[in-house]
């Protein structure tokens, strides 16, 4: 489904990715682990074409994502759900509106929005927060809201970039369980983290990165 072909990313005085080759098959749950600055986030940004590689190519199915024109890039992003460490919710929109916005982006009707949003908020246990703004919610709740937004359009891929980085162990556990459940339903999940406990509780394929390189991939070491 996703194919990184000898991808490198160099900044002025730093190397974010160094000749990375990685394949993710549809339906997989891949955890990318590494210290801060190992290149995990750069790797996920490449899939969204939020960063351009200095060398190499990134394919989403048969599409070279960095060759996409604006409209096609918008369409590609609509097929991917993203969860960030700092949630990246829209602060001036309520929980309901945050999710409705993602649905509006893909052209869902008002009726679909009205019926699906309460449903997904119930899934992440936020029914009571429908009309609250992100600023009025706890970190765990905000992250659950971000996950609800990521899955509302039934994406083919979920990218969760350090989703538990700002959460306590109880909330971390909840988020990991939600992501596993999403994966069980058939969605591919790429999770980045520096937390060993998270990797252990997921128990799926682990790719270890260090200084921009993949130094270990459990898929090949099995």
């Amino acid at each position, binding site marked *: 489904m996703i194919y990184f072909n000898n991808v490198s990313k160099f900044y002025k005085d730093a190397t974010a990715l160094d000749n990375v080759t990685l394949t993710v098959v549809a339906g997989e749950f891949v955890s990318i682990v590494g210290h801060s600055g190992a290149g995990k986030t750069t790797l996920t940004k490449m899939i969204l074409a939020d960063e351009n590689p200095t060398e190499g190519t990134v394919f989403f199915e048969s599409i070279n994502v960095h060759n996409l024109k604006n409209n096609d890039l918008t369409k590609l*992003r*609509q097929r991917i759900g993203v969860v960030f460490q700092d949630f990246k919710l829209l*602060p*001036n929109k309520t929980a309901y509106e945050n999710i409705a916005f993602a649905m509006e982006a893909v052209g869902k009707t008002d009726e679909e929005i009205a019926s699906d949003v309460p449903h997904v908020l119930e899934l992440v246990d936020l029914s009571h927060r429908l009309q609250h703004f992100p600023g009025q919610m706890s970190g765990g709740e905000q992250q659950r809201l971000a996950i609800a937004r990521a899955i509302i359009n039934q994406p083919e891929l979920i990218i969760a970039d350090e989703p538990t980085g700002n959460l306590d162990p109880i909330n971390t556990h909840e988020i990991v369980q939600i992501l596993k459940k999403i994966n069980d339903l058939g969605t591919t999940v790429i999770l980045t983290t520096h937390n060993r406990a998270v990797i252990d509780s997921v128990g799926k394929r682990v790719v270890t990165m260090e200084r921009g390189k993949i130094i270990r991939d459990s898929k090949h070491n099995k």
Partner: protein
Amino acid sequence: MMTELKRIIKAGFINFTRGGLVSFAAVLVVTITLSVITFIVLLQAVLYFSLDQIKDKVDVTIYFTVGAPEVKIILLKDSLLKLPEVKDVTYTSAEEALKLFRERHKNDYSTIAALDEIGTNPLGAYLNVKAKEISQYESIANFMKGDNALVLGAESIIDKINYHQNKLVIDRLNAIIAGAQKLGFLITLLSIVIAIIITFNTIRLTIFVAREEIGVMRLVGASKMRVRGPFMIEGVIYGIIATFATLILFWPATAYFGRNMTDFLGLNLYDYYTSNFLQIFAIILSSGILLGVFSSFLAVRKYLNK
């Protein structure tokens, strides 16, 4: 498409109301800009009114010799009227000139007595010529001097033309008027440019606050128009509210000027404001909306690269 537009408009209104102080600040700055524009519109009106009045005071008078035949004078008047530079020519006959003279000097007994003593009318008829532009008086005067076929034979009946006496004053006035118009235009241009830059920067700041949001919207898969649209609608709202605020502010301001400064300005600003209200409203509203929409459009563009 219609749903998209409806959502964009709705989002613009919601963003505006939730913007609180930021929205208020933006409206305030647009109001200041529109006030500058309105002020300039009124200032131009005063300037042009004064200049027109001054221009109207300038004329050239052709005095004819005593007893010059009226037919010839009328013939000259007609040929003068044919000149493209001439706006108007008024004929004052010798009798009328005398009547006006008596009227003007009715308290000056010795002059009136001297006039009665002469018995006959010592005054000649005259033509009062008004040009369309002050700069054209010279060519009219030259036309009279020249041996043009139209004025052939007129020379013998012309006593004097007062242009040459007034030339210095006319030239100076001409220079002052041209300078005032140029200066007025420059000040207008400069003020408007400054106002636009200030407004643009304020709106840019309001959007700078939302730059991360713009990035998130794009990552969630929103189209550029879906991200940019609500900001542009907000720009329209700034423009409309600021227009009404400006027009309401200028109501009492022009009323004050109309009551207290009409003699000084030569123009009742309140009357001007109310009689040209629709035009001013159209200028201010279109400036406000254009300013808001365009500033938003440009400011968002910076964060829409991806």
